[in-house]
Structure formats: structure tokens, C-alpha cells
């Protein structure tokens, strides 16, 4: 297998690849249904676990985070003790506003969870310094390839389904996709030569080339 990439690093607006080449020796692939089902199941487990992971404060070291958690925990315990004491004695509650009490209760929950388990999602109450930025860039740079060279790839694929084991929708989608690759009408030679055109200009050229503008929004991927 050979992959070769030359990329310009001085372009800020686009990811400019002067050359992209990929080639694979002739391969035999033999897959059975049970393996595919188990593999996809495992991928789902990984994806779900990655979604459930807390957003860590990436800028800071773990030790610093732990230190701040301990400080917050002590502070929460202190405030709770003070609040309970005041409540028992029936004194006025001017020491803590309702907001402060709410905060201390939430911190208490957080500190209790810290006692139970180290890897818990952090409640960002009292730890405003570490709150991750809500601004997440959803847009990525457009890609431009000067030379996109896919060497002829020969793969002999053998697939054996196991009847009655798992008729998973994902598997049927994968099979439909692989079955449709052969008829995929990918024609790239008339795409715009400049990577700095606007999106409407790009879509115009693409429609002229392909003929059907809707196919760019098709959910079916490579085939239409």
C-alpha cells in the first residue's frame, strides 16, 4: 500500500493538496456476516462511549483540575455546614442568598460524585474558569487537489451472510453501498480549476458537468 501527499501549508482559506496519490496491491477480502455484525456493534459501542465522555478542560493539566475540584469540594462542604448550622439554630438566612445555596447543593452533589468515582462529568458550577467554550466551529475548509491519483485497485471481495443471525439495518446499508460503488458516476475532470471560487460558482460548474443539481444533496452517497 502506498500513500503519497504533498500539501501546501501557506494556504489559509483551503486545504490545498498539490498531489494526492493512493495505490493498493491486489487484495483478497473474505468477510462473513457474523464478523461484520460484531465489528459494527463494537463501533457503535465506541461511538456511544465517546459521546458520553465529558468535555475535559483541555487547556489545563489533570493535576490542576483535581486541585480545583478539591477546593470546590471543601468550599461546598464548608458552605453546607454553615447552611445546616444556620438552619438548625433558626437564625436568619442572610448569609447565603438562594443562588448561593443552590450552588452549594450542586457542588455537594459534585463532590459526592468525586468521592464515588474519579472519572465523572464535571459540573461547572463554581469552576467557571474551566468551562469549555461554547463556540465550536462547524465549518471545515474546502479541499482542493491539484493531482488526485487513485491507482487501479483490484479487490476480490467474498462475503458470506449468516442467515437468521442478525439482519441489521446497518449491514444492509453497507452492502447496498458496496454494491452501488461499481455504478458510481464519479467524473472529476471538469471541476473548477481554482480552489478560490465561491460556493455558488462551484455549484454552477458542478451542475453543468453532472447535469442534475439535486444529486449533490442525495443521501445515497456516491450513486444517484
Amino acid at each position, binding site marked *: 500500500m*502506498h500513500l503519497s*501527499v*504533498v*500539501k*501546501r501549508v501557506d494556504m489559509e482559506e483551503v486545504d490545498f493538496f498539490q498531489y494526492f496519490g493512493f495505490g493498493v496491491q*491486489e487484495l483478497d477480502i473474505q468477510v*462473513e456476516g457474523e464478523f461484520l455484525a460484531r465489528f459494527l456493534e*463494537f463501533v457503535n459501542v465506541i461511538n456511544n462511549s465517546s459521546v458520553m465522555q465529558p468535555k475535559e478542560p483541555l487547556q489545563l493539566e489533570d493535576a490542576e483540575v483535581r486541585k480545583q475540584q478539591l477546593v470546590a469540594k471543601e468550599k461546598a462542604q464548608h458552605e453546607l455546614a454553615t447552611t445546616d448550622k444556620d438552619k438548625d439554630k433558626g437564625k436568619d438566612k442572610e448569609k447565603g442568598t438562594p443562588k448561593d445555596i443552590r450552588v452549594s447543593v450542586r457542588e455537594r452533589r459534585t463532590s459526592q460524585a468525586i468521592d464515588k468515582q474519579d472519572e465523572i462529568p464535571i459540573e461547572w458550577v463554581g469552576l467557571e474558569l474551566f468551562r469549555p467554550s461554547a463556540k465550536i466551529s462547524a465549518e471545515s475548509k474546502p479541499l482542493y487537489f491539484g493531482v488526485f491519483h487513485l491507482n487501479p485497485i*483490484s479487490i*476480490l471481495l467474498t462475503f458470506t451472510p449468516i442467515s437468521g443471525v442478525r439482519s441489521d439495518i446497518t449491514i444492509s446499508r453497507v452492502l447496498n453501498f458496496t454494491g452501488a460503488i461499481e455504478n458510481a458516476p464519479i467524473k472529476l475532470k471538469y471541476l473548477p480549476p481554482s480552489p478560490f471560487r465561491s460556493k455558488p460558482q462551484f455549484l454552477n460548474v458542478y451542475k453543468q458537468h453532472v447535469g442534475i443539481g439535486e444529486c449533490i444533496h442525495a443521501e445515497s452517497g456516491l450513486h444517484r
Partner: protein
Amino acid sequence: MIDDTPQELLYLSLEGINIDLVISDKNQYFEVTIAKAQADNMLYSTIYPIMVYPNIKVRKE
């Protein structure tokens, strides 16, 4: 690769790995070459123990 059961799913072996990375002020050159790659299906009941392997044809002259 071991799944969450845990059970071995896949054994991947790569031979002859060569990676080149050259970074200059203007360009970034990256090249990977793998001489041989093979993936074994580690399920006990498999009928294809070798899942992916290079088909090396010997040319007769």
C-alpha cells in the same frame, strides 16, 4: 482488536512500514508505504480465518 465482551475480533499485522514526512515553509510532504498487510479474523467459528491478505501472483516467464 478486542471488543467490549471482551473477545478478540481482529489481528492486524503490517510489515515493511516506511513513513516519510518533510515539512518546509511552503509544502508538507507525507508518504507512507506498507509492504504487506494482513488481517486475521479471530472469531472461533469463522470460516475465513484470514480476512484480508495481498494476492501475490507469481509471473511465469
